């Protein structure tokens, strides 16, 4: 059973900040398939399209029949630990800091033997459930988890390096007025966040949930207007050094297309949704990126909540879609810029939310509570891309299958 993590003591500001190191980063292109699977929480391996042999390590041709058509498919996670070791010596700086480290060899029921990280509750001979998660270098890696749930299993130190678990971390939720801000704060506290900072723009007119959230011991409500560079900088100067997870909930949305639309609304959407994200990244990013190796409450993730229309425009919300595509693009650049630090950028894609601005849209719509849960689950699982709700999942699947067909369907092509 994993030892429950205890709340870390206050930091001594005179001690040197540990410089982040990364686990081995290099991969072949084929192995990036593991990274792609881990990003969305899928357990996918290559299957031969002719003889169905499951391959590992990832390769370019089937080891049973030489067929070169290998498909990444969801695979049975079950297996048994054949051998285990605890590594006490490594020439790699990342692992040297984290020794001893447990690794093992697992025979998957699906066929291959897998050299993997071992969760602390897993021993030689045990049945396990294999998972692929993103490591600090942003690459997909295998970890053998207990076959069933174990107490405090998320607190296992090796598993924790592969997630952005909010437990004992301090979280900034940027906009109290987002319909999902309140359930998100409650979910974070339930998940063990040690403190939640909640941003409030235009504090002279209090947001509706202000009183109820301010009454919570772990919550502070602070001035933050993502459209105002000074406001963002001022807050970052105050709490940037203790923000472990930043969840950008700020969003401005108005229905309407492009031709009949109003560029004033469009500008407001860009100001909040795209430039607001840039301002937050510029003000909080460097401090967070410098604290990714800072113990139990190290900086772990920068989270965006994006509309599924970021992937392909929803013409009923034309300018808003454009702002979401811009934000999505910015998040990709941030991934590149944060890569060396190990700070994760998690995007949560969501379909129409059940709020006043999507009032005329038909269901399914995402309830604020469901979105809040998806955000926290994504952090606990260590995902990079979360598709929340049936609508976003459907859009993602269609986008991956054929982006052009999706575009045609979204722009007025009902099925015949």
């Amino acid at each position, binding site marked *: 059973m994993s030892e429950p993590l205890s709340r870390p003591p206050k930091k001594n500001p005179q001690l040197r900040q540990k410089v982040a190191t990364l*686990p*081995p980063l*290099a*991969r*072949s292109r*084929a*192995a990036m398939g593991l990274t792609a699977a881990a990003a969305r929480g899928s357990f996918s391996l290559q299957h031969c399209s002719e003889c169905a042999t499951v391959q*590992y*390590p*990832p390769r370019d041709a089937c*080891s049973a029949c030489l067929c070169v058509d290998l498909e990444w498919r969801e695979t049975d996670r079950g297996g048994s630990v*054949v*051998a*285990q*070791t*605890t*590594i*006490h*010596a*490594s*020439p*790699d700086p*990342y*692992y040297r800091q984290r020794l001893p*480290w*447990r*690794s*093992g*060899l697992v*025979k998957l029921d699906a066929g291959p*033997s*897998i*050299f*993997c*990280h071992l969760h602390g509750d897993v021993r*030689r001979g045990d049945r396990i459930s294999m998972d692929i998660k993103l*490591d600090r*270098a942003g*690459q997909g*890696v*295998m970890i053998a988890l207990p076959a069933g749930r174990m107490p405090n299993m998320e607190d296992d130190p090796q598993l924790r390096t592969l997630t952005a678990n909010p437990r004992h971390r301090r979280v900034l939720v940027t906009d109290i007025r987002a319909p999902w801000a309140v359930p998100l704060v409650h979910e974070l506290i339930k998940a063990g966040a040690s403190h939640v900072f909640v941003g409030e723009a235009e504090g002279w007119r209090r947001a509706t949930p202000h009183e109820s959230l301010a009454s919570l011991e772990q919550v502070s409500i602070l001035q933050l207007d993502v459209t105002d560079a000074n406001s963002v900088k001022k807050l970052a100067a105050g709490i940037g050094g203790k923000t472990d997870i930043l969840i950008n909930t700020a969003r401005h949305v108005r229905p309407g297309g492009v031709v009949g639309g109003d560029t004033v609304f469009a500008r407001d959407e860009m100001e909040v949704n795209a430039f607001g994200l840039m301002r937050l990244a510029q003000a909080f990013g460097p401090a967070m990126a410098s604290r990714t190796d800072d113990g139990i409450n190290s900086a772990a993730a920068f989270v965006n909540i994006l509309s599924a229309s970021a992937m392909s425009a929803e013409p009923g919300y034309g300018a808003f879609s454009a702002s979401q595509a811009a934000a999505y693009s910015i998040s990709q650049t941030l991934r590149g810029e944060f890569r060396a630090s190990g700070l994760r950028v998690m995007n949560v894609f969501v379909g129409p939310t059940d709020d006043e601005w999507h009032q005329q849209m038909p269901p399914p719509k995402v309830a604020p509570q469901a979105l809040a849960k998806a955000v926290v689950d994504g952090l606990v699982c260590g995902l990079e891309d979360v598709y929340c709700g049936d609508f976003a999942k459907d859009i993602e699947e269609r986008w991956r299958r054929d982006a052009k067909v999706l575009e045609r369907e979204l722009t007025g092509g009902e099925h015949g």
Partner: protein
Amino acid sequence: MKNGSRQSYDGAVVTAPVTIPYVRYSQETAHWWIARALRGVLDKAGLRTGELDGFSVSSFTLFPDTPVGLTQHLGLSPRWLDSIPMGGASGVVAMRRAARAVQSGDARYVACVAGDANHIDSFRRLLSSFSRFAMDASYPYGYGGPNASFALIADAHMQQYGTTREDFARVAVAQRDNALRNPDAIMKTALTMEQFMAARPIADPLCLFDCVMPCAGAEGFLVMREDEAVRRNLPFARIAGTIERHNAFPDDPIQLRGGWAMDVDELYAMAQGSPGEIDVLETYDDYPVISMMQMEDLGFCAKGESGKFVRDHDLTISGDYPHNTSGGQLSAGQAGAAGGYLGMVEAIRQVTGEAGPTQVPDAMTAMVSGFGMINYDRGLCSAAAILRGAR
């Protein structure tokens, strides 16, 4: 013989064994080490570089060169050139191929040389670019290097067969005893059972003295026709039989046997011999458990009984089963690909009576075994040869 009969290696012999003494760290390059070993074998045979028409090279640290670049670097014009990138199997495999070249007349004299540099940090760099599967699927998991992979194999051997750390110790302690007679060995002090057992852990169940010391060095020998060796008055060894195999038993979930198990019957059939006739055994000892796997797969004991075998026998030079008589890599050091030549070069010395302080009296027949290249979770190359002296 499941593969049909192979032609014998009659007519081709191995000679001129040379070791360039190892050093822990050296600023010299692989080219420098290989040049010295090549000079050594040529001098020993009284050959000029212009006469050398066959060259076989094994090295991990020649980059960006290959053996092609070495020909110009070293002023050679061979008509037969080979590169054997098989790590611990390189010595046996280089010899097998060179012997065929000499038998067929493609080359008259083949110099087989392995050498590697060891600069500060070069071991870590070598690991990080060792193989695609290692990069993708083993280094990201704790970066224990080969120690971690072999720890898993050792763990499985112990679980499956009841092998113990004391058994591993017997192999290593006997080899250290042998190394103390070898003036070129890196390790100069005795190793006791207690020290082996009390050593700091590296990757459980492996501890410090289960592991080799990376260093710089080179080894070499010549392959030529027997009548040439006689004419030049060179002590030589005949190749009674030899095998190689790659990626054997791919469906075994973990490696508890190597390719020898597939080919061992053919090896003894070729040599018209048996394990009982072997006077000296030189296994590839990157870890004691791997030497023990070779003892099993080469028929010195049954599968899983190598623990009992090493308990029942004295593996030192003066013992009843002399094993890794120069100290092996565990005590002489692992000079990169030269580690795959160490046993071969020592075996040639033994059966030609040139081993000096490590000589096993009256050694006439030696088994050399090679094992190489942990590409992902197991060593892929295995090879073995039986050498007979001609005294």
